[in-house]
């Protein structure tokens, strides 16, 4: 299933305190966390986001804490995919566990501007920039990660495993 949406571009080393500052970590509710998404980057950032939009970032997106609240707040804000030069290790694992699709594209991130509209085909490792006409090709998503996205995250995946045992 492709992902379609408008790009909100952010910089390099966007840390988990920028994505969701610690003062908002007093809930586990996805929607509430979503209301504070990127509050540590710019107060009110989330107001620009529409359901289905995409974040495009520089190097090392999601560095810092292991808080799963970070991918949850991105999901809660209505964002369905994050494309970056690279991701921090714990955030990468957490995002797929929560059902948030990530794609690592290295320097090709420079071919995407704030406000562009993208169509992403993770299984094929392809992004079409509908605004500029550019096509970006990267290694496709690994089958394990694809499965986690298809199931809607790790909880559903494990639940199915436990049921079938």
């Amino acid at each position, binding site marked *: 299933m492709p992902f379609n949406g408008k790009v909100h571009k952010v910089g390099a080393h966007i840390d988990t*305190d*920028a994505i969701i500052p610690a003062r908002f970590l*007093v809930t*586990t509710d996805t929607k509430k966390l979503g209301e504070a998404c990127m509050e540590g980057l710019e107060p009110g950032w989330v107001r620009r986001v529409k359901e289905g939009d995409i974040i495009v970032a520089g*190097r090392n997106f999601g560095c810092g804490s292991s808080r799963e609240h970070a991918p949850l707040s991105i999901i809660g804000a209505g964002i369905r995919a994050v494309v970056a030069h690279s991701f921090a290790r714990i955030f990468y*694992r957490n995002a797929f566990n929560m059902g948030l699709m990530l794609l690592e594209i290295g320097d090709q991130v420079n071919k995407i501007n704030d406000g562009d509209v993208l169509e992403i085909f993770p299984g094929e490792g392809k992004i079409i920039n509908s605004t500029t006409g550019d096509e970006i090709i990267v290694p496709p998503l690994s089958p394990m990660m694809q499965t986690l996205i298809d199931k809607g995250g790790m*909880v559903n995946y494990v639940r199915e495993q436990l049921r079938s045992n």
Partner: protein
Amino acid sequence: MQQTLAQKILQMHTDEIVREPGQIVECRLSGVLANDITGPLAIKSFRAMGAKRVFDKNKIFLVMDHYTPQKDIASANQVIVSRKFAAEMGITHYYEGGCAGVEHALLPELGLVKPCDLVIGADSHTCTYGGIGAFSTGLGSTDIACGMALGKLWFKVPQTIRVVIRGVMPQWVRGKDLILRLIGEIGVDGALYKALEFVGPALKEIDVEARLCMSNMAIEAGAKCGLFPADELTLDYCRSHGVPAPQQISGDDTSEAERVVTMDITDMEPVVACPHLPENTRPVSELKDKKIDQVVIGSCTNGRISDMRDAARVLRGRKVAKGVRCIIIPATPGVWRQAMNEGLFEIFAESGCVVSAPTCGPCLGGYMGVLGDGERCISTSNRNFRGRMGSLESELYLSSPCVAAASAVTGSIADPGVL
């Protein structure tokens, strides 16, 4: 076959043959940790998965440390979730109130982690236990839920960056300065997805508390873990903290490293990380006269007894500068009591410091020393991201307890060697 320390430890926890970096292996877990922030999410996932019991009630560690003593109604309600879960599952190692300390200082102190263990924790600084030769790494709450239910999890065998440390430790240089220097050299994503392995002749000068501090910040270079060999120093430390028969372990000298970084420490001066990333490091002498409003000495990085003694050595007979708040937070009840018995609190009180109960508190901008607009702080914690300790308009510098204490005295960033 020559193996890195990471490969050797993973091999001890799986029946598969650990061959090379990139390989995915399923491993049995020695311990699974969560705290008051990440615990409730893990418990929510655990229940949603349909799991009914934990894999081993003696191997789950629940430490209420970030916002305890509970700072407000919401954080109190979060602790209730963990407390009920611990009671329901019969979890042995649940810590709250007077038993709770900052998790990564508490677990080694209580002898709950040991060399060769494989530990996961829902906290990024779980990598701390690499300081005693354990493979430990931070994960999100849902991976932790999976670990709590099944007692095993998949790991990608990491590549290794070997860090060779040579030379003699200068008088005012500590483990914190070495790890800040390394992060400055390789960058905050310099070890992304990789293991750091510390070796070299200078290791014999780096005591176990300094090693725990260095491994703690491996994550600030993006690393999966930061491993020290378990040598005689480690075994002494573990035995004195109640581990019955700790094992020695080290990586093979000629095992494959993705990169080798050599640090000669003989002529080093203390290092400070400037806003807003741990990689923005400078020698302390370049920052002198930078005015500060607050000093924090504590955290899972530098809240141990050696850190308290360092702070006291600098503060003894001196006063905290007018207009500066100096907040000292012993990381565990054990450290707190030891510091009290050694008379360190008398020194801190005489200097005009605030001494707090153990908590993560200000490190993550929680409470007990949050920064306002335009305020500047030097802290012994591990992360100086924008807004980490409070206002987005505040500035945070990272250093050792020696530099932090010296700065408290002068009211601006200072080298303890030239006080």
